[in-house]
């Protein structure tokens, strides 16, 4: 079912892009394409979280990263009634209505066989308890391994060492699952590319200070959430820079806002990695 919806989504967006070539549409085409890649028989599919796992590490391998939360939770956009029925299925299976509806939907889509197969399930503790819990539950369902990247709340030398140690182990596990060799130089390049993209996103955020904003919140937030699926790939910076150009054109003649009540939505684009200074 999801494969059918993402095919329709991609086709529709490609038509829209021909009529109106916008960076945000291009980003959504890439999102649908990446989801569809995960359905290919020969793909090495890593389930992950685009916005809470360091995607640069996956970009250093040739894998299909699949964010099961985002993938399942676009479903109501295609078929709201169907999504409710799917969630009912999760509740019949014992998932409490007290737990996150994103996760109930993802769990039920897995049970119903709507998701692509997973070769490895990666998650992190960066956002919420539910994320790594549902990752483990679904790994149990597929009989595959789940690994949670444990991110402590305090930044210190010890916590950085702890996270780095886990990332080395995860790289080893990806090597094992995919049969590909981990290339440290390729990872370094992915990090450099990703840092450039973050700086481009920073420019975009600055341009949003103008009133009226060049973009309403949705595409900007989508860029930060979906955009991370491309972290470590050149195309992420290209799309952000296209959006910066579009914003500059829209902002021409406008001034920095001093009035109104801007509403801040917490984005999920972290600072460039080289700006982290642990309290050593």
């Amino acid at each position, binding site marked *: 079912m999801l494969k059918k919806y993402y095919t329709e989504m991609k086709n529709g967006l490609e038509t829209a892009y021909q009529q109106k070539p916008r960076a945000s549409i291009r980003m959504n085409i890439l999102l649908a394409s990446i989801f569809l890649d995960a359905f290919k028989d020969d793909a090495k599919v890593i389930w992950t979280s685009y916005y809470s796992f360091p995607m640069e590490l996956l970009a250093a391998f040739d894998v299909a990263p699949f964010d099961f939360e985002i993938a399942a939770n676009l479903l109501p956009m295609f078929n709201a009634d169907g999504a409710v029925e799917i969630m009912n299925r999760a509740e019949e*299976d*014992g*998932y*409490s209505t*007290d*737990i*996150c509806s994103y*996760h109930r939907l993802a*769990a039920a889509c897995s049970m119903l066989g709507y998701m692509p197969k997973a070769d490895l399930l990666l998650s992190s*503790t960066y956002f*919420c*308890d*539910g994320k*790594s*819990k*549902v990752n*483990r*539950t679904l790994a*149990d369902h597929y009989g595959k391994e789940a690994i*949670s990247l*444990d991110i*402590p*709340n*305090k930044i210190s030398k*010890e*916590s950085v*060492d*702890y996270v780095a*140690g*886990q990332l080395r*182990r995860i790289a080893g596990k990806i090597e094992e699952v995919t049969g590909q060799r981990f290339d440290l130089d390729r990872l370094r390049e992915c990090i450099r590319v990703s840092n450039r993209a973050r700086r481009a996103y920073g420019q975009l955020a600055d341009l949003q200070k103008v009133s009226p904003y060049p973009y309403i919140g949705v595409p900007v937030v989508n860029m930060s959430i979906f955009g991370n699926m491309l972290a470590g790939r050149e195309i992420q910076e290209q799309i952000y820079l296209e959006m910066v150009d579009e914003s500059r054109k829209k902002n021409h003649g406008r001034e920095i806002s001093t009035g109104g009540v801007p509403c801040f939505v917490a984005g999920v684009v972290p600072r460039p990695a080289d700006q982290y200074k642990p309290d050593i």
Partner: protein
Amino acid sequence: MPGAFNRIGYFCSMVPVEIIMAAGFRPVWVKGRANMTAAADAYLYPNICPYIKSLFTDALEDGGTALDGLVFISQCDGMRRLHDVWKAYIPSKFIYMLQAPKNVDRLAVEYFATQLRDFALQMEKVSGSEITGPALKQAIKSANRTRGEMRDLYSLQTSSPLPVSGSELFDYGLQILFGEDNEAADRISSIRKKASKSVKHDKGKSKTRIMISGNVMDRPDLFQMIEDAGAEVPVADFYTASRYFERTVDEHESDPFMALAAAYLGAPRCSRTAAPDEIYARISDNVKRYAIEGVLLTSLKFCDQQLYDIPGLLKRLNADGTPVLFVENDYVFGDRDRVKTRVEAFVETLES
């Protein structure tokens, strides 16, 4: 310097009480006393753990003066939020947030040991004296002995009829959690000796034997409901009950912080770090060991750690033919009658 009754509160069994004891304080499991948690709703989301809301309601009422300090641990999102609001709104002499890993491998144990060293340093500052190696080793020995005595007491519960009722045994455990001291082991030892005399070896069938398994439980309601319905509870798998006492810290490890980290991240684990398979294996072992006829699974509402595991546990228990009832609870049992009816029906089903 701490006085004899200076108490440091904690909310999770992953807080190593030995470090608090070595600093000269008495570690105290903090129970939520409030039956209504509406006051906390002004500070915390309504869909947050009811245990946490009960704790914060108490803090708002007594101004947080009941204890000399509090140790939070990064056990779950809810507890982290409780730490945040507590720090912001409740004047406290000492608040510490202990970072606990969510993984349990060697890397996690080593990281946790570094956090425990930092915790010990902070406790030293509060107590004004150094936590010496011998003091920490003595605290480890003392806590091990208390837990060992409780394990021995639990082992008597394999007999039928029970030498100690489930609710009594649960209460003995809670008394230790509510104020671990050096005399706890002696008290339990004396109870165990008395109880062992009443153990009958013919193992004749008496009452229907139900095990309760869940996360936080520091109220006797479910035990009373089961016992009032004519059944008994040989073992309760909570981190405020048998699970807490199964832990032993290695007294011979040269680095006591590594020993504590390994023990507190080790088995028996709760849903925070254990996969459903591991929890099921523990429940299954207890079912066999204590001749359990039915399992009552319970979880606090909005507990992400446990609620995600429930479908997997139900599936496994149903597959092996173990009768199981799952009940969500709101910590204060505001829906007591509804839960009681379900428990009574479950007991009747098992008896028939």
